[in-house]
């Protein structure tokens, strides 16, 4: 009985602050002119699909997020692997060092990149000394991807690291005893074992990097509006709840669908790493 009571605050909170707000977003996405006579309408969605510019923004967001996620896996996996296999006494310090930048706010970290990337920044200055002339990296897709990777990399490393910690050394020893070379041990045992961790990492990197805003506004000089910037603009600048809601719903549908297909390739026995 008492255990049921324990869950009441969560029930209430979930209803009031998660379900009702989402219902409001969806409701207004289908309602024309919320201030006048509210009637059902699909205009928001029609506007989105009838103008190729918006599809282009969505595709660009997906592309940038896809590349960022891939780079995060390629950079983050070895780091997580080395950390998980390490017996060094500095291991704990390294893990804390990786999490620490998150205590320095996301926006501060993003803005800090300007010191390196802008025309008068460090990289450009060094390049000028070497005779390659000043180069302004801001306002390029490269900069947006670089900063996305930077912002979200710890979210990729940690779930993979936690999954790899659970890997039993005796399985690896057994495989080696049975004649598998190190590469085979890695691809046959370690990598499949870490798939749930990778999937958690993908969820934690891909979704925020599709829908982030501010990164493209700061280091991208606003030249590459992403879908998040578009949504923000609709709600905060033009106050169009219908169109904003339509973009949000389309984006969420695409992202959820992609995540669903990625997750389906996972075997059921391990489950999603996030949910463990």
């Amino acid at each position, binding site marked *: 009985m008492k*255990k*049921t*009571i*324990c*869950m009441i*605050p*969560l029930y209430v*909170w*979930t209803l009031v*602050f*998660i*379900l*009702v*707000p*989402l219902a*409001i*977003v969806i409701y207004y996405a289908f309602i024309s002119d919320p201030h006048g006579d509210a009637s059902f309408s699909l205009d928001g969605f029609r506007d989105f699909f009838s103008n190729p510019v918006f599809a282009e923004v969505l595709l660009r967001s997906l592309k940038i997020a896809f590349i960022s996620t891939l780079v995060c896996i390629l*950079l983050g996996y*070895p780091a997580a692997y*080395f950390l998980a296999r*390490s017996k060094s006494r500095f291991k704990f*310090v*390294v893990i804390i*060092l*990786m*999490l*620490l930048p998150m*205590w*320095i*706010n*996301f*926006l*501060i970290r*993003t*803005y*800090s990149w300007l*010191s*390196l990337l*802008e*025309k*008068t*920044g*460090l990289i450009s*200055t060094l390049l000028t000394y070497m005779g390659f002339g000043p180069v302004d990296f801001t306002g390029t897709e490269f900069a947006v991807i670089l900063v996305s990777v*930077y912002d979200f*990399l710890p979210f990729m490393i940690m779930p993979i690291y936690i999954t790899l910690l659970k890997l039993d050394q005796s399985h690896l020893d057994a495989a080696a005893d049975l004649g598998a070379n190190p590469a085979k041990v890695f691809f046959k045992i370690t990598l499949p074992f870490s798939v749930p961790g990778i999937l958690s990492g993908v969820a934690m990197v891909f*979704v*925020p990097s*599709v*829908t982030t*805003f*501010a990164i493209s506004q700061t280091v991208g000089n606003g030249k590459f509006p992403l879908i*998040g910037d578009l*949504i923000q603009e609709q*709600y905060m600048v033009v106050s169009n*709840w219908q169109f*904003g809601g339509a973009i949000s719903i389309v984006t*969420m549908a695409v*992202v959820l669908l992609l995540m669903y297909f990625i997750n389906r390739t996972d075997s059921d026995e391990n489950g999603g790493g*996030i949910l463990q």
Partner: protein
Amino acid sequence: MKKFFKSSYLVLIILFLYAPILVTAVYSFNSAKSRGVWEGFTFDWYKELLERDDIIEALSVTIVCALIAALVATIIGSMAAYGIGSKQKKGNSFILSLAYIPMLNADIVTGISLMLLFTIAGLELSFMTMVLSHITFCIPYVILSVLPKVRQLDWSLYDAARDLGCTPTRSFWKVIFPELLPGILTGFLLALTMSLDDFIISNFTTGSGANNLSTLIYTAKMGLKPEFRALSTVIFGIIFIILIIVNVVALKKQKNNKRGNEI
């Protein structure tokens, strides 16, 4: 050789994670307004920072909001995890997937949906609405940390305590709670981290008069001003000092434990 490669790889990743922060720190002592040219060493930007009351207020808003949000989220999340984990019921995985929505959903949608809720409910966007929003996205991280601990609980210990004459409440606090405590603390720390790191949800759910650091930097376009470098460096410094203290304390504890074991 192999070990050297592994260590240098990790060092490179750490360098990557700190490069922009460190470069910004160096430039914070540069008297030139733009970053590229070095015109000499100065503390001017720090002096200017001290005179900005709005920044100091935003810093305290950030910290107070994170502490309240993490505390409330820890209480709600831990209670829920205890309820969900100690009973196998069909509805549990359903409520769990609903409760995890803010963690999996895009921050921008979470932020906007909460903004619409507050607007329709007639609440003015303020410090309070920001805290409520932070609690909302912190709860899943607490459940995530506490739930495994609940599932690992050995209920026979609880039964033993009851047999030995403890009341249910006393048995809970003496036997169950200490087992859950590491998970609860992890959850609190994770919630605190998420709240401190957040920009997107705060941006939508706070109003004028209640800026945290990130919304202040965003609305005042402060990221482009030289005081920003000083601010970034100060925050980095504070966090670094906290880290060193925590490490020293942990190290001392470890030594004491070892000594205890030897005896």
